[in-house]
C-alpha cells in the first residue's frame, strides 16, 4: 500500500510494471491515470500547476486509501499524485488497485479517484494564452464522489 506525492514527472507504465509484481494471488489490476490536457473550456492550456497542502494531503490520501481497503478486499493499492508545474500530456495522478477479483479492483479504483478529487487538498492553476486561472470545482465531481457515500 503506497501513497506518494511527487514533485517531478513520473512514469505510470513503469510504476504499474512494478505494482503487484510476483504475486500469484492477484487476479486483476485496475488503474486510472489522469493527464494534463492541452485544452480546457475551448482555451489552450500551456501548463498546469498543482498546489497542495503538505501534510494534510498525505493524511487525506492515507485516509481515502484506508477507506478503500475497508470497503473492498484489496491486495495492494498505489496512489501517486504529482504537484508543481507540468505540461500537457504529462501525468498528474495514478491510482492502481489489485484484488483477487476484477469487480473489487475496478470499483475501488473509481472510488479512489472520485474521493481524491473531492477530498484531497490540491488546487489546479492553468496557464492559458490569456493568462493564468484557477480551475473551478465541478459539480460533476461532487456527484461522482457522492455515489460512494453511505
Amino acid at each position: 500500500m503506497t501513497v506518494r506525492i511527487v514533485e517531478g514527472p513520473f512514469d505510470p507504465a513503469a510504476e504499474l510494471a512494478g505494482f503487484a509484481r510476483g504475486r500469484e494471488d492477484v487476479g486483476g489490476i485496475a488503474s486510472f491515470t489522469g493527464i494534463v490536457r492541452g485544452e480546457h473550456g475551448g482555451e489552450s492550456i500551456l501548463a498546469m500547476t498543482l498546489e497542495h497542502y503538505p501534510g494534510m494531503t498525505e493524511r487525506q490520501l492515507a485516509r481515502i486509501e484506508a477507506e478503500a481497503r475497508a470497503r473492498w478486499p484489496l491486495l495492494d493499492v498505489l496512489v501517486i499524485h504529482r504537484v508543481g508545474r507540468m505540461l500537457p500530456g504529462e501525468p498528474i495522478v495514478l491510482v492502481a488497485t489489485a484484488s483477487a477479483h476484477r469487480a473489487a479492483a475496478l470499483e475501488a479504483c473509481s472510488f479512489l479517484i472520485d474521493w481524491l478529487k473531492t477530498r484531497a487538498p490540491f488546487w489546479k492553476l492553468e496557464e492559458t494564452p490569456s493568462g493564468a486561472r484557477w480551475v473551478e470545482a465541478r459539480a460533476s465531481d461532487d456527484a461522482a464522489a457522492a455515489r460512494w457515500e453511505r
Partner: protein
Amino acid sequence: MNGTVEDMRVRYFAWLRQRVGLAEEELEPPTEVRTVGALKAWLGERHPRFAEACAAPGVVRAAVDQEFAEDDRPLAGVREVAFFPPVTGG
C-alpha cells in the same frame, strides 16, 4: 480549555492565498474567537479581500489541524487553521 487560542498559524491556499497576499501568518486571536466561523470574521477585519471571499456561500473551506472543519468547529488547543477554495486535484 476555555477557548483561549495562542500562537495559532493561519494558512491560505490557491487563489485565497493570492487575494490575502500571504501564504501563512502567526496570530494570537482574542479569547472571544472560539470557532472557525468567529476566526473567519476576525480575519476578515484584517484582510478585506478575505472577508469578500467569505461573503460568497460555499467558497471558503477550512481545515483545523489538517482536517476539514465547519464553521462551528471549536478552536481550543488548535495549532493550525487553513482556508482554501474547493479542491480541484486529480
